[in-house]
């Protein structure tokens, strides 16, 4: 059972499931762990995408618009809007597949890239054909050796068997959260370190080689492949009208095994959790969207659906699909402190407010966890998390503020215990003598 969402879940521990009653799409006939769907096997179900031509194909953009697929990397942004902007930019566009998956408790993209990489790569080729791109970069997180192996093998197969009319390259993304940020990927491909750069320009205006650059999460592109083959109407037959289709969620914490589950967009969180062997009465908080996400009370979380609309009143969003269920016998304050420490360690240390602010927040959270100066430290956290918002080159510090503030709200009772020098985990905190 995972009790530390800031540590990467053992890649071999993940299992795969499908929500009850749902016909799986991305996970249909998924090869078991360690196996791989070859190009020939893939082509038996998914025909070759069209050749990529300069100028693109507006009909493909229209199909994606009709389907209404949104980004599965975290921002839930409508795909077709990105395609239109990039297609109308200056210069021949580039396409980046973002498979960096920096969230330690997420493994959906690794599952796709290691076992069915052609599903993802085809999506990138369709996107490239739609916008008339010149080159595709498949970016894979260095933490996932199986994803790197899957993509590498897939690209070799394609080199031997097909000519999509576009070069496709794999790039390895260093194992640091902000390395997966869009501008970091562009900076890395352009020859720099994988850290965010100043804005503007934004990558969709000027990215790789100063060309307009389309960047999509790996899962998003896998959906694109299924849409192009089965049609927009088929895609919309699952999910809600606002957020159609299915999505992959990574569940961990108070469960027998961590699991990647394909669910309908808008599925009930309670049903998803229970269907995978969870017991709602044994959970004291749910971290939605991973370390970059928001803590919800069990009451709010289990009453919600996995959609922007349903989660909006709670202040959360489905994000990248990470659902971490804190077991109720584990101290929430300690976990919030651990994730705050993760933030401090993961800072790229480019921006002063992030470098110093995240360290100060982590130190203060550690003090609260250790029952040292709890009230002054809570006041300090309140001020630091409010000050840090919007004061980074990327949104990383904002994520820390959101995670800490929501955590202190959800675990308010636990904070009270700490104020008295006690803790749910059964230990009496070490009070400095």
């Amino acid at each position, binding site marked *: 059972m995972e009790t530390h969402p800031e540590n990467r879940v053992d890649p071999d521990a993940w299992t795969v499931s499908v929500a009850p009653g749902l016909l799986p799409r991305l996970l249909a006939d998924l090869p078991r762990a360690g196996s791989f769907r070859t190009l020939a096997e893939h082509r038996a179900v998914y025909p070759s995408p069209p050749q990529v031509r300069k100028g693109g194909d507006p009909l493909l953009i229209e199909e994606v618009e009709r389907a209404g697929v949104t980004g599965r990397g975290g921002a839930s942004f409508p795909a077709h809007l990105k395609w239109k902007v990039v297609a109308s930019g200056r210069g021949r566009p580039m396409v980046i597949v973002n498979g960096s998956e920096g969230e330690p408790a997420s493994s959906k993209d690794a599952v796709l890239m290691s076992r069915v990489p052609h599903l993802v790569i085809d999506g990138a080729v369709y996107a490239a054909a739609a916008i008339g791109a010149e080159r595709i970069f498949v970016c894979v997180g260095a933490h996932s050796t199986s994803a790197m192996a899957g993509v590498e093998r897939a690209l070799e197969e394609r080199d031997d068997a097909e000519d999509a009319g576009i070069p496709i390259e794999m790039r390895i993304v260093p194992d640091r959260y902000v390395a997966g940020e869009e501008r970091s990927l562009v900076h890395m491909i352009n020859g720099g370190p994988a850290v*965010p*750069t*100043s804005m503007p320009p934004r990558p969709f205006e000027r990215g790789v080689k100063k060309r307009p650059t389309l960047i999509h999460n790996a899962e998003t592109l896998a959906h694109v492949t299924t849409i192009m083959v089965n049609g927009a109407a088929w895609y919309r037959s699952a999910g809600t009208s606002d957020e159609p289709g299915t999505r992959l969620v990574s569940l961990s914490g108070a469960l027998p095994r961590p699991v990647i589950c394909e669910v309908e967009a808008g599925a009930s969180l309670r049903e998803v959790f229970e269907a995978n062997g969870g017991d709602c009465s044994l959970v004291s908080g749910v971290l939605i969207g991973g370390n970059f996400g928001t803590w919800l009370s069990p009451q709010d979380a289990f009453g919600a659906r996995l959609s922007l609309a349903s989660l909006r009143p709670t202040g959360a969003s489905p994000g990248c699909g990470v659902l971490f269920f804190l077991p109720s016998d584990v101290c929430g304050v300690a976990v919030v402190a651990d994730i705050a420490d993760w933030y401090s360690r993961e800072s790229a240390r*480019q*921006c*002063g*407010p*992030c470098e*110093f*602010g995240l360290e*100060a927040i982590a130190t203060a959270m550690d003090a609260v966890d250790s029952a040292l100066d709890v009230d002054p430290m809570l006041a300090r956290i309140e001020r630091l998390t409010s*000050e840090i918002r919007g*004061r*980074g*080159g990327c949104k990383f510090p904002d994520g820390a503020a959101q995670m800490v503030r929501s955590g202190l709200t959800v675990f308010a009772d636990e904070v009270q215990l700490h104020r008295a020098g006690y803790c749910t985990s059964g230990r009496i905190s070490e009070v400095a003598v």
Partner: protein
Amino acid sequence: MSAKTEGRYRISVDFIACRGHGMCADFLPENVSLDEWGYPIVKDDTLAPGRLRDAKQAALLCPELALRIEKVNASAEVARK
């Protein structure tokens, strides 16, 4: 409205470039304060009338050229509301 928005300017900080020299807070104390490490906190991003000169001076003297001044365009202002 158009007469009022004309000539309004907004400031922002490029935090990747900023090294906390604090020039912006010296020149524009009503807009910018400093955090405990000396990095700017933009309390109010809109320049008061007559403050453009000092803002330009601050932007020019910032050793990292991290202070940005942009003209608020009326349509963007409407869109923001």
